[in-house]
């Protein structure tokens, strides 16, 4: 329920009043009428969501895990993972961010050298203990890069993963310390074995969208991917990244998404903000570089949601109190 309405009815001693945001509902149905591409996607998406029947029966990973996925590239997946990891660490959570994207750019956000060869993909037994982890940087998250693989080796690895369904679980066991509170998994775009394995063991699947028609039209495919891979207990949340309401389409995409996804959508998008790119350009965390950035605030709000959700969902002790108070 929106804040103003909740406050009103609490004040009026009728907190259970079933308020209908009629205008928003009407806006949601008006948007697809205006943009036919949205209408076409919504039809497919509604069918998919109506018949949703998770087939997978995966067991969640021992650490509370979040898989960040998208169908199309360039929507800001890695940026979201990096900033959520920073925000969670800053909140005193022991956080591990794992990169499963062969582009291997997550480390970049934490000032990691691009030539590092070690990481998730590097299965050399000798290098195992030596280079898997990248040290916690000044109270920041533990970042596990993907590692550098040439195309042939990458193809081999993906082939291997299609056979060994527990590959990711095994590798995570080696990489993730037992006392970790949250595990964030960055994945490559599209339907690939890494994505499937990440989805099968996560408790929250975070779908990142850009507020444009291309990204919007991938939603049915994403839902299909989720349906095939996530466990029944997994929660799906869709996040719109790079939102700018001065563009007419953005607002309509958001309204339409609200209508068709409901609770599945994060109500607040992450605003488009040059500060995000600039922080990466300086290889500095966004929260430090631009404290008054709206995008940083939006991401921090999602980190906040993750903490609340995890505390409510996981058994006592698994997601305990924060280690240090937020500065």
């Amino acid at each position, binding site marked *: 329920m*929106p*804040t*103003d*309405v909740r*406050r*009103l*009815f609490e*004040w*009026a*001693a*009728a907190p259970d*009043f*079933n*308020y*209908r*945001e*009629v*205008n*928003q509902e*009407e*806006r949601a149905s008006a948007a697809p009428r205006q943009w036919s591409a949205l209408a076409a996607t919504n039809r497919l998406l509604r069918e998919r969501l109506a018949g949703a029947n998770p087939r997978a029966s995966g067991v969640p990973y021992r650490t509370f895990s979040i898989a960040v996925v998208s169908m199309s590239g360039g929507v800001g997946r890695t940026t979201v993972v990096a900033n959520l990891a920073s925000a969670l660490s800053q909140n005193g959570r022991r956080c591990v961010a794992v990169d499963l994207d062969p582009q291997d750019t997550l480390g970049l956000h934490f000032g990691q050298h691009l030539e590092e060869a070690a990481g998730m993909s590097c299965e050399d037994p000798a290098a195992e203990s030596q280079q898997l982890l990248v040290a916690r940087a000044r109270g920041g998250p533990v970042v596990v890069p993907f590692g550098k693989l040439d195309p042939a080796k990458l193809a081999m690895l993906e082939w291997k993963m299609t056979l060994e369904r527990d590959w990711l679980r095994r590798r995570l066991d080696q990489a993730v310390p037992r006392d970790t509170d949250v595990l964030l998994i960055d994945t490559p775009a599209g339907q690939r074995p890494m994505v499937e394995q990440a989805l099968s063991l996560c408790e929250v699947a975070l779908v990142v969208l850009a507020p444009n028609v291309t990204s919007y039209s991938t939603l049915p495919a994403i839902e299909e991917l989720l349906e095939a891979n996530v466990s029944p207990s997994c929660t799906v949340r869709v996040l719109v990244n790079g939102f*700018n*309401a*001065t563009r007419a389409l953005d*607002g309509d995409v958001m*309204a339409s998404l*609200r209508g068709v996804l409901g609770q599945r959508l994060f*109500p*607040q998008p992450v*605003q*488009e*903000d*040059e*500060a995000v790119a600039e922080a990466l350009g300086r290889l500095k965390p966004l929260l430090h570089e631009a*404290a*008054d*950035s*709206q*995008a*940083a*605030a939006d991401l921090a709000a999602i980190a906040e949601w993750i903490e609340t959700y995890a505390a409510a969902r996981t058994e006592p002790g698994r997601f305990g109190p924060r280690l240090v108070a937020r500065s």
Partner: protein
Amino acid sequence: MAKMPRVLDRVLRPALALLRMVLTAAALAALLLVAMTPLDMQTQLLFGASLFALALLMNRLPGKLVTQALALLSMAVSTRYLYWRITVTYNADYSLEVALGAVLLGAEMYAYLMLLLGYFQAAAPLPRKPAPLPQNLDHWPTVDVFIPTYNEPLEVVRATVLAACAMDWPREKMHVYLLDDGRRDLFRAFAAQAGVGYIIRPDNRHAKAGNLNHALGKSRSEYVAIFDCDHVPTRSFLQVCMGWFLVDKKLALVQTPHHFYSPDPFERNLDTFRTLPNEGELFYSLIQPGLDAWNAAFFCGSCAVLRRSALEEVGGIATETVTEDAHTALKLHRRGFRSAYLRIPQAGGLATESISAHVGQRIRWARGMAQIFRLDNPLLGRGLTLAQRLSYLGAMLHFFYGIPRLIFLVAPLTYALFDLHIFNALPILALAFGLPHLAHSVIANSRIQGAFRHSFWSEVYETCLAFYIAIPTTVALLTPGKGKFNVTAKGGRIDHAYFERRIAAPYLVLGALNLLGFAIGATRLWRGTGETDVLLINLVWTGYNLLILSASVAVAWEQRQVRSSPRMAVKLPAMLRVGARALRCRTIDLARGGASIAISSKRELGKGEPVVLSIFHDAEEMPLPAAVVEQHGGVLRIKFEPLDLAQESGLVRALFCRADSWISWREGERDRPLAALGSIATRGLRNFGHLLGSRRPPTGKGTGAAEALPPKTTPPGMVAP
């Protein structure tokens, strides 16, 4: 087994009714016993003192029952006083003293009657909650929204129309109409642009009532919501109001409070805005819920929803009197319809802009109520319950306070100036009977009303108007057909502070007389040329009159009001787009033309720099183009560029339409009678400050909030968590 309850019911119901009758009779007998038992002076003093001590002790206990007990105690003591007053102090004789004494006694009897009716009205205020609506939107009823206007500026009307369109109600089930009795082309163009209906008529017969009735004939939804053209509804208005209509098929009216976001003349000129309860709060927070408990809550002309079929049954909005609203409600009640009052502020309006406009409005109300009293007296005629008759009686008699209050203001002068004894009793006896009467009513009323009206402030509010409503009410009683509707001016500006001589003149005269009386009384006391005890009582009374009169005169010092649409301390999370950067910020205050924003003081924005402000108050983000005016550290002032209609609507929604816009609006202390007296005295002393300061008094802080930086207090209701 199933029959058992019915049998029980058949036995219990008459038994309970009988029990209630016996108890009522016993209580009345006890009351009369208390009132009529003669006591000698010492015993009466002791009796009064012990009851007073009991009341003080009881007042320390919480609970509604204690409140009612205190009211009963006050009723008993006042009845005793009046009984003594009539039987002992008054003797029919033909002399000037006796004639004047009768006048005073009449005024006291009126005050006593109003005290009783007041207790009755506020006996058990109904804390009504909104009723839920059906899940299925198809079952929601259709509503016409009427916004009558006559001569108000378009600027004021625009916000109301845009906000009405933004109410959360299915589009095809809501029809907004602008009813323009001014027949202005600009309004027609705006209505077309906003996509709302525009209704005009060839003449202006019966003013607002006629305008509404004409529109009733041109529309056809099941319900009619009415907003004065400056009352901007929140988005939740209809969902809050409509539920009860579906629950109760005989319900004809749901009324909500009139909330004013600009200071009224009292608040502005006495500097009480948002710290002390304003004049309307007692009525909308206590009396209307109290009336609702008796099914007698009445229509107040705006911020209400009416059932069309019921309205048609009584022939539309009443046109016989100038207070068409209360009269319409009376007619509905007579027909057996019910009314409901929801004490949930769901619209914000502009208060009257000046004390003279305020007086004009109240003259209309008083005249209208007197007209109804004469033409359609609630005590007579069919269809009302006893409780409804008493409720309406209270509401109408209230407006006859003019003459009694003037009598109380001059009564003590009769002895000081002319040596007349109009109160024929030993002073010590007068104290023994009179003091408990006054003290208990202060205690009980402070307890009942304290949260909504501080002690003694009623006297200030009423004294200000007493002179002006005394004549119209009397005239209306004699010739009820006379008098026309006058429109209350709103949303104006006062460029220079000035003293409203026209309004203050009668109170200056009364003040001078009381001052003279006080001086003569004090001199006589000093010289010993008079009865000491009588003089003392008269001095205290005159002193009290001077206190109230000086506060009433202080209201006439009109303070500057610079903005016609005030800046409001709306504190919401927001975002400022500057180039490709999105800066997180918060609004400090908002107005139709611009905003103040708290941003990181590290950012430095140049004058005139283009920015885009987004205010986050509901799901939909509406970016508003603006330009930087100036920056002082972390406070940035911006001015909006010309906004298109969608953007203007977005701004109006952020300013006025949040569901919680007007809850917890005032921050203030609870009533403490002696402190209230002190605060009235402070206001009265300002006269001298104004006089000494210069001919042009300094601008008050109250209006300053409309112009300068953040007001001193931020109501919690305005801050989003």
